Structures are given as structure tokens and as C-alpha cells.
């Protein structure tokens, strides 16, 4: 038994220790790893009617993955341009949402963390309370704001900024706003946590030596906040790439999110293997992308947990 486990059982007792360990294992293995493995298994099988499952046609195949790249066999195009476009657009959009969120949330987190006083608690509450409202309602609220006859358009047309209403939905502005807003807390709080533990004297020391504010952030605050920034970015990126409700409600009619394709495969086409393959591709690509970016910015896996 590794020493950390021994230590764990010593501290919690055998009974309590086994219970805790059992629950954690049930959670990770039973609720996460096994279902994912079964999805992985699905993704390599053909979509067969129930009587043929387990029959001679039920063999492992790459055709679900091929479909994403080449489209239906004998199709008119060389590549599955529609789905691939949606796939890359989703990734790029998720990256944009992440970067946008970081730019928006870093100053907020810095302010919350480095300012003393009771008003900070009120600010934090004002950030948290909107999340009591469920995601769908929040998305529809944004639709009311951004819609063609929505609040924003009425205002802008009324003020004479636009002659005719601007279609925020078709131009995906509503979608980006909705995704951005959906995850700001996941960006703010990890960064806030780290910056809160930053010794104020370090900022003053840098300032005393003549550093400008951008310099202080670049050399002192941001390097220190890196673990928080990376865990915030990872969460926001993963969740926005995998979001479904916001794209469904706020996306323009022509702009699908990749998760919507997955949803269609599962639900509308009843093609679970195809849906599973799409989901696996999305998951693996996202993980690889996150790992690559972490490597680029020299972030360790351990930092994310901080």
C-alpha cells in the first residue's frame, strides 16, 4: 500500500477511510470512467437495429470516425465539410469565449482579491446570486435582451444608433455573451483565490522600485496567479466547448454548435455510435488542446488543482 494511503487510513480509521475511498471510487469509476468507456465502445460499433446487436455484423469499425471526416459514403463531397466546419468553429469560438472571459474576469478577480472592505462581499454576492436562476432562464433572458425586438435593439434604434434592428442572434453576439456570462464565476473564483493569497507587499515592493501597473501585473501578479488562471481557463474552455443549452437558445439558425450535432445524432437520428464518436472526438481534441496550451505556458497539472 502506498504511504499516502496508509497515512489516509491512519488518519480516518479503517471504517471511515474505506467508506470515503469507496465513495470516491464509485464516483470516479462508476459514474465517470465506466460510462465514458462504454461511450468509447459505442463509438467503434456500427449503428444496428436491436435484433442485430451481438450478431455477425456487430464488429469494431472506424466508420463513425470516418463519417466525421469524409461524410456519408458515396456523398457528393470529398469531405464532411458541414460537420468539420461546425467542429472547428466550435473550438475556435470556445477559445474566443475563454480569452474574452479571462480579459473580463482578471481585473474583477484582482479587484475583489486586493480590496478590503464589506462592499467586496456584496460584489461577490451580486456575482453569485444570478446563478440561482437556472441556465435556460438565463439564456432566454439574454434572448429577450438581444432579440430583434429586444431591449437592446429598442434602445439602440430609439437612440438612433441603428436605423433597423441589428440581428445580434444571427451574428452570434448573443451566443458569445451568453456563453461568456454563463462561466464568469468559474473564471473569477480560481483567479480570485490565488490573488487573495498574494502578499500585498510584493505589489508595493515592485511599485516602490518604479514598476508601472502593467509591469507589476506582467511580472508579479500574473505569474503568481498562473495556477488560478489556468484552472479558470481550462474549466471555461471545456464547458463552453461542451455547452448545449446556450447554443440551442442563443445560436443563430445557421450556426450550429458541435454539441448540437452530437445531440442530433443521439436524439434525432437515434445513431448512438455516431454520436458517441463525435463526442469522443470533441473530448479528446479539447484535452489535447488544453495540454498543449498548458505546455506552452509551462503550467503543471498539479497547479490546476491549487
Amino acid at each position: 500500500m502506498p504511504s499516502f494511503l496508509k497515512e489516509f487510513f491512519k488518519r480516518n480509521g479503517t471504517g471511515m477511510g474505506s467508506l470515503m475511498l469507496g465513495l470516491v471510487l464509485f464516483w470516479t469509476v462508476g459514474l465517470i470512467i465506466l460510462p465514458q468507456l462504454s461511450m468509447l465502445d459505442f463509438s467503434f460499433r456500427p449503428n444496428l437495429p436491436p435484433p442485430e446487436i451481438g450478431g455477425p455484423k456487430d464488429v469494431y469499425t472506424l466508420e463513425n470516425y470516418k463519417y466525421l471526416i469524409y461524410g456519408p459514403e458515396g456523398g457528393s463531397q470529398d469531405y464532411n465539410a458541414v460537420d468539420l466546419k461546425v467542429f472547428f468553429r466550435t473550438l475556435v469560438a470556445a477559445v474566443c469565449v475563454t480569452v474574452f472571459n479571462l480579459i473580463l474576469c482578471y481585473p474583477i478577480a484582482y479587484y475583489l482579491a486586493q480590496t478590503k472592505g464589506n462592499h467586496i462581499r456584496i460584489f461577490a454576492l451580486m456575482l453569485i446570486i444570478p446563478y440561482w436562476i437556472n441556465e435556460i432562464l438565463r439564456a432566454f433572458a439574454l434572448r429577450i435582451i438581444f432579440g430583434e425586438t429586444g431591449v437592446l435593439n429598442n434602445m439602440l434604434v430609439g437612440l438612433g444608433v441603428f436605423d433597423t434592428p441589428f440581428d445580434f442572434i444571427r451574428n452570434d453576439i448573443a451566443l458569445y455573451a451568453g456563453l461568456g456570462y454563463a462561466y464568469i464565476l468559474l473564471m473569477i473564483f480560481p483567479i480570485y483565490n490565488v490573488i487573495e493569497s498574494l502578499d500585498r507587499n510584493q505589489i508595493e515592493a515592485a511599485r516602490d522600485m518604479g514598476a508601472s501597473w502593467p509591469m507589476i501585473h506582467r511580472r508579479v501578479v500574473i505569474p503568481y496567479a498562473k495556477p488560478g488562471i489556468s484552472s479558470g481557463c481550462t474549466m471555461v474552455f471545456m464547458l463552453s466547448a461542451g455547452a448545449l443549452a446556450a447554443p440551442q437558445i442563443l445560436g443563430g439558425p445557421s450556426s450550429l454548435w458541435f454539441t448540437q450535432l452530437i445531440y442530433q445524432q443521439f436524439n434525432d437520428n437515434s445513431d448512438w455510435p455516431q454520436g458517441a464518436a463525435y463526442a469522443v472526438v470533441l473530448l479528446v481534441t479539447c484535452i489535447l488542446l488544453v495540454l498543449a496550451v498548458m505546455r506552452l505556458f509551462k503550467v503543471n497539472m498539479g497547479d490546476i488543482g491549487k
Partner: protein
Amino acid sequence: MSAGVGVDLENLWIRFGDFVAVRDANVNINGGDFFSFLGPSGCGKTTILRAVSGFLEPSDGRVLIGGNDMKGIGPNKRPTALIFQNLALFPLMKVWENITFSMEIKGASVRERRKRADELLDMIALPGQGDKLPSELSGGQRQRVAIARALCAEPDVLLLDEPLSALDLKLRQHMRTELREIQQRVGITFIYITHDQGEALTMSDSIAVMKAGVIDQIGNGKTIYNDPSTAFAASFVGENNVFRGKIKRIMGEEALIQTNRSGELVARISTANQGKMKEGDAAMMFIRPEAFALAPKGAKGTHFVTAKVNNEEFEGNVFNIFMEGDGGKELKVSIPNLGQSFEDHTGQNITLEYETKNAVIVPAGELAAE
């Protein structure tokens, strides 16, 4: 010394809401001096330092550095460098990056910075340690890196906020000598904040004793120790015995004081209070433990004190005698150990004598908390 840039505080007031942190401070610090602000915690000394460094704007009055009013000039634009109590080294930067951070700000090349870092590392006796992280150094080494980092900016004035308080006693005493040496070598003005009178006395050219936002006395170490101007300064700096009473007669520079417990005694009026005290004034007389000598039993006169001994202890270099004193405080006497025989007086009355020049009278006032 005339080299170096002086710092002047003129009628400096600093308020936080209703709280007055610094009350009408007037200090002239000569260029090249090692100047200490000495006082208990919460007396406003750090506030003064922050006003000099520019992190705080005075509520009233002026801060002048080298004769220039610093109003509206931010901490990043002042010719000062501050060493923080916790040093505030950047944990993610290597030692050489820490030391030359001020050069990085100005856009110096890595080669220049490396060179300067090596020079400074030699100066603080840490050659070749530039590539370590601060966390890999010991407390004393980190201390020296903080000094090097501050000096790298070539400030005219170095401000130090109790930088030795985190070190253990031995290291602290060693660093006192080292700090003083560095200051004399670089020749710039040091302003040092401390609550440790030993630090202030050993290192400073000049000391300002502070109490509750007010500067009580400014002078060199000897003056502060031997010729305190207030009851607070007398009781805060070093050990002192207090005798409360009333002035009975002024006799030139000396006065006869009617003490509450020990009869009529004669002492010198402290220089700052000469000519300001009159008969009938409430006064306090202070005599240091080492200024007493044992006198023949029952000797009477205006420089003899008789009291009952509570207990005695042998400290090695001195015998300490603790006697019943004034106002519930014990009267402490330290007799140097010169190899003489020393009998135990516990429970007995003994008589002490002192020279009037070693006893100081100041107006009655608040004593420093023990």
C-alpha cells in the same frame, strides 16, 4: 556627514478618519545619516515610513527629500527604496532577477543585469547564489538579498521597516553590524523603523522616539539614553527606575524633588526641560539600574535611597537586586560582578546611593508599557 540626500518632515499630520496616526511631526534627517524611528507597535512609525516612500499622502504638512516637496509624487517616482518587514522578495523570480528588478523596469539587458547582480551578490557575501530561488536561501541570506535589491535601484534614501524582526537573536545582532557597515560603505541615508531599542541604539546616528503618533524626542543614542526629555522616552529606552514626586526647589540645573516613597532626592533636570520646570510641578525622576551603588546601611541624604529587597538574582556579569519601588513597580539595581563577595539581602532594607548627574528629572507623564 554632508554627503547624501536629507529628508525633512514639516508639520506632518496623517489621519485615518478620526484616528490621528501621526501628529505634527517635525524631523530633519541629515543626508548620509542612519536615522531610526523607535517606538512601540502602533505608535505611527510605519505610517511615517509609508509617507516618505509615497504609499501614503500626508493629511497635512510636507515630506521633503533632498529639499524637494514630494507631494503628488508616487512611490515609483521617488528616490527611495523600501525594505519590507517580510522582505517581499518575489518568490517566482530567481535571486538575480529579484535583485535587478529595478533595472528590468528600466529596460536593462540581461547581460547588464547579470553583471550588476554579481557585483551586489559579492557585496552581500552571497557570490554565485544568483540562480537560486529566494525560498532556497536562509533567513539571513534572504535579508541580504532584500538589501541588495533595494540598493540596486541606487536610491538616495533607503527605508527599512523592522527588517530584522523575523530573525533569531544571534542573526539579528550580526545583521545590525552588517547593516551599519553597508550603510557606511554606500553612504546613503537610511531610515530605520524599529521597536527594539538595542537596534536603534547600536546602529543609529540619530533616533526619534515615538509614542502614539507623537515624536517625543530626537537625538543621538547617548542623548536619548542619558538625557531623556520625557517620561516615556526615559522608560521606553532601556531599563529605568521611576520615582514620582513634586519639585520642591530648583537649584540651577538640579532640583530637589519630594518623592512619594523615598523622601527628598536631588537630581539633574533633563536638558530639554531646563528652565521649564518650577517648584510644585509634578515630576518624575529616573535612575538606571546600573547607576546605583550599595551604600553603608542607614546612610541618609538627598542621594540615598532605602528600600526593602524582594529578591535577588545572579546574571553573571551583574547581580540584580529587585526592591520595593514606586507605584507598584519594582526598583531594579544592577551591581557589576567584579568578583566581590555578595551577601543575600532578601527581606532586608538596604540603602543605595547614586551620583546626581546620573539621575534625571522630567515632567510627570505616561510611562511606556512593559
